[in-house]
């Protein structure tokens, strides 16, 4: 091991002393990301429901259906409600997350999806079934959806109880979004807190020739979600840094123009 590698490993021990994602306490838990939800203001969110147990089994059952549980959270991480949904008979079901699916959806900022009551899987071993999901976001004046997969393994579910799986430490860590924010665009970053403690977040911005400046500071509750809006002018470039005690403060990013939209994970 050379000196550079030794230094890196030593820093690793200081900055990431535990795993980025905690292992669920209970065998038989299932895991979900915390997916940003966009409804109202001209947005619709879809979720691609796939038969994950069937994919793990190597075939889809014609006779048994498992249950899919949607749990919705508000911006402060409070649970708004749960919606049980029988797994569809077809292997792909694009679910529109609207008031007809969940009445109080307008209050929700994020959601998780847990697959439960499925027939035992013989090949899981010590692993846990996970919904890493594909969310489709549509601006209502746009012809198609932008898809993005789950961003952070966030919550375990076991017999009605939820466990946050993200980790935060004592030291502050920076997450620099490796994307030049370019204009003319309105960027909207959705940041969620996957750990079980409140976390103070500082968002900083700089241009290619300036130093970091504070842009926005807020406290994010466990399961909470914050939208950070950043306007970038024509011919302008900005860089974004997220400073917090989160091991991985990685946002989902929307880049919006008057007539188009691009969504991707940080």
């Amino acid at each position: 091991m050379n000196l550079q590698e030794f230094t890196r490993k030593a820093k690793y021990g200081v900055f990431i002393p535990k795993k980025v994602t905690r292992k669920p306490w209970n065998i038989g838990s299932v895991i979900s990301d915390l997916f940003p939800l966009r409804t109202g203001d001209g947005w619709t969110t879809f979720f691609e429901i796939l038969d994950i147990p069937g994919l793990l089994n190597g075939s889809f059952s014609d006779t048994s259906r498992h249950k899919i549980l949607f749990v919705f959270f508000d911006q402060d991480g409070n649970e708004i409600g749960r919606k049980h949904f029988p797994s569809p008979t077809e292997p792909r079901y694009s679910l529109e997350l609207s008031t007809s699916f969940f009445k109080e959806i307008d209050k929700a900022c994020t959601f998780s999806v847990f697959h439960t009551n499925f027939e035992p899987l013989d090949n899981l071993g010590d692993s846990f079934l996970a919904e890493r999901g594909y969310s489709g976001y549509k601006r209502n004046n746009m012809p198609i959806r932008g898809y993005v997969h789950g961003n952070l393994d966030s919550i375990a579910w076991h017999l009605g109880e939820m466990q946050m799986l993200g980790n935060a430490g004592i030291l502050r860590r920076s997450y620099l979004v490796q994307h030049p924010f370019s204009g003319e665009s309105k960027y909207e970053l959705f940041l969620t807190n996957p750990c079980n403690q409140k976390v103070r977040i500082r968002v900083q911005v700089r241009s290619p020739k300036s130093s970091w400046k504070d842009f926005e500071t807020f406290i994010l509750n466990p399961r909470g979600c914050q939208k950070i809006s950043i306007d970038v002018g024509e011919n302008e470039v900005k860089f974004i840094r997220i400073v917090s005690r989160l091991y991985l403060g990685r946002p989902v990013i929307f880049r919006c123009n008057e007539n188009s939209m691009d969504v991707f994970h940080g």
Partner: protein
Amino acid sequence: MFFPLMYTEGLTGFLDLCYFPPNNWENRIKKKLNLFAIWPDGDQWATQNVGTIEYGQSRQIVSSDHQEKLKTGLCLIYPSLGILKNHISELPKLPIWHTRIPEWRATTGFRNAKAQTSYQGELFPLPNNASLLTFHPFIQYGGIENRLLVLNATTNPEIIESDIFLYDSKSKNRRGSEKVRTNSLTTIALDKYNFMPHELPAFVIPNMAGIPFGLGISLDGNMLSMEHTHPPASLVLFGNRFGVQGEVKKKWIGKLLENKK
């Protein structure tokens, strides 16, 4: 570690490379770096210095400036302290940036006059002896063209052609097959296979690895949509995920390849 500049017909590929690390503790290199384009050229990789990048800055590279390097749809961008020979027999092994939590990523994607679509990615050479199984829920309907993009880079420059088989995952009926190539971005038009909204397409390459993307292009040009699908290992977390992936692949690929209807 490499960063893909990609090309698919009718769109401009772009790569936004940032020279600052994703975290504040892993990478400390701050020297000016050369950016090399690397692309397959017969039995060797051709290379060309396409500029430099300073610490703290970003550089955009677009496909329209490098069409001659994108005959396979893929050109790798490699940041390097040193100089590469004009032709090399293997991809460089030394990564210039060392971050793992998270990986050092670039923004790469496609654009047209009205829209762009991005993903954050990096590319490590894929193994030669591997397979691909993926389930594809990205087909959209009504005024949209749907494409499958398969990205592959291996250490060796030769371009090897393989078959990709397309199935309806429920009936396991084969809808067709196409050719895919190593060290390429292969574009496959999906709409002619008439997958219905409730069908979940399954794609199998028995003898080649790849990173599969769904690309949607609205016919009015106002929007593009691209995302990659997960490998089967992402259906689970913790434990022996790659053991689980092996089992899942064995079950699905075995059953699917049996069915040639």
